[in-house]
């Protein structure tokens, strides 16, 4: 098993990537960590005539704070770097997600940008970034644009990016004080994709009211989903137990799982509701400064 023939170009800088995209965008593919595209090429499900290797482009590798207190994560940031980074407590879900993606070999190569651009229905970064209300900065030879992450995911394995567009970085907006986050993933075995997963960001005011909440779901639709109905139920509430149960039911109704080797539709619906409720509870405890473990189930 090996890929079909292609011409290989290695870009050393962002302008070089854009130049290569201008010349080869329509027949080419970007090579980031290769952990999705190389398997696809070996199976001949993809046979690009040109491969544009962006692995040496330093501009794409930084994690940096921005002026407003948000974060910018370069597209080429490896899962491994997300795993070992010391995140502020409010972003604990980044660590929850990073450490259970594939295995160490996959995490050493796979990138955040590659995973988002791949739109694997069971991928981990999609639900996480949805819950955070992240935005994506894309560049092409024609210019630059920033879009909400919700718009990136068009269909399974399909983004809204044009052929000559590069996902440059992910912007995580600043989180207000009292924010807690958590990500829970159920997997069949170590290293596997999620059966289902849930990411929660929640912010509680000192008087106990839910000021804001973001809920992302993985493995239960063609693309990572945002549970807007459940978000609306909880936002502004006092997060009473009864209401949380109602939100859990809403999560189950809002998702659209498909039956596959990882489980039936009913099973995934059941699981994703429970994962959401537990992730919310962990996020709330973390918001109060507690150290709580999350990750896989």
């Amino acid at each position, binding site marked *: *098993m*090996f*890929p*079909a*023939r*292609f*011409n*290989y170009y*290695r870009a050393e800088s962002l302008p070089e990537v854009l130049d290569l995209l201008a010349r080869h965008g329509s027949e080419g593919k970007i*090579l980031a960590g*290769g*952990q999705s595209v*190389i*398997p696809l*090429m*070996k199976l001949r499900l993809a046979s690009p*005539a040109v*491969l544009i*290797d962006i*692995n040496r482009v330093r501009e794409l590798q930084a994690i940096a704070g921005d002026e407003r207190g948000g974060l910018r994560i370069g597209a080429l940031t490896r899962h*491994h770097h997300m795993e070992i980074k010391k995140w502020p407590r409010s972003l604990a879900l980044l660590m929850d997600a990073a450490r259970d993606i*594939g*295995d*160490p*070999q*996959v995490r*050493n*190569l796979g990138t955040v940008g590659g995973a988002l651009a791949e739109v694997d229905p069971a991928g981990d970064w999609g639900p996480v970034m949805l819950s955070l209300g992240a935005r994506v900065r894309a560049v092409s030879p024609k210019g630059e644009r920033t879009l909400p992450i919700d718009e990136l995911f068009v269909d399974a394995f399909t983004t809204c990016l044009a052929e000559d567009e590069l996902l440059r970085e992910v912007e995580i907006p600043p989180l207000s004080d009292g924010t807690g986050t958590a990500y829970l993933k159920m997997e069949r075995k*170590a*290293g596997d994709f999620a059966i289902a997963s849930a990411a929660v960001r929640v912010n509680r005011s000192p008087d106990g009211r839910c000021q804001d909440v973001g809920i992302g779901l993985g493995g239960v639709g063609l693309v990572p989903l945002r549970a807007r109905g459940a978000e609306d139920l909880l936002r502004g509430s006092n997060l009473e137990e009864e209401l949380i149960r109602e939100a859990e039911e809403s999560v189950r109704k809002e998702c659209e799982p498909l039956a596959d080797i990882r489980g039936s539709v009913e099973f995934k619906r059941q699981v994703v509701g429970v994962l959401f409720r537990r992730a919310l509870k962990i996020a709330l405890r973390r918001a109060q400064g507690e150290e709580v473990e999350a990750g896989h189930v």
Partner: protein
Amino acid sequence: MKQRVPISLTVNGEIHELFIPPWQLLLDTLRDELGLTGAKRCCIEGQCGACTVLIDGKPINSCLYLTIEAQNQEIVTAEGLVEDGKPHPIQKAFVERGAVQCGFCTPGLVVATKALLDQNPNPTEDEIRIALSGHLCRCGAYVQITEAVMAAARETAQKEVGV
């Protein structure tokens, strides 16, 4: 399309000047062009870890990595751990603890252990299991493998304090 391109590949400290097809996987170059058969051709889809080698000290699956990506990077295979014809303490520990049964997963595990101990000379059992979670051993020698890594860690630590 260019059938072959020149590449300079550093494997186990030795530089090789090769002409390879850009679509050739690192695993195939190591085995078929350089005769380094430590990395195994097994699941060939990044699931089993038998083809694991180190790139700049980090374990990767060489079945999901193009040779051409490795230009100017340091590649280490299980063969590279041998010094003066003598097995590395990690390799010795694997043999002595019965962590080698059929042996097919061993070269991958050995280099992954090298990467782990270079980063964390004194890992806990949990840390070992997490670090080696990308390797399948179909003989099921996981207990012995974990013990071998602990023994290798002790051995290396003793060497360092000169016992």
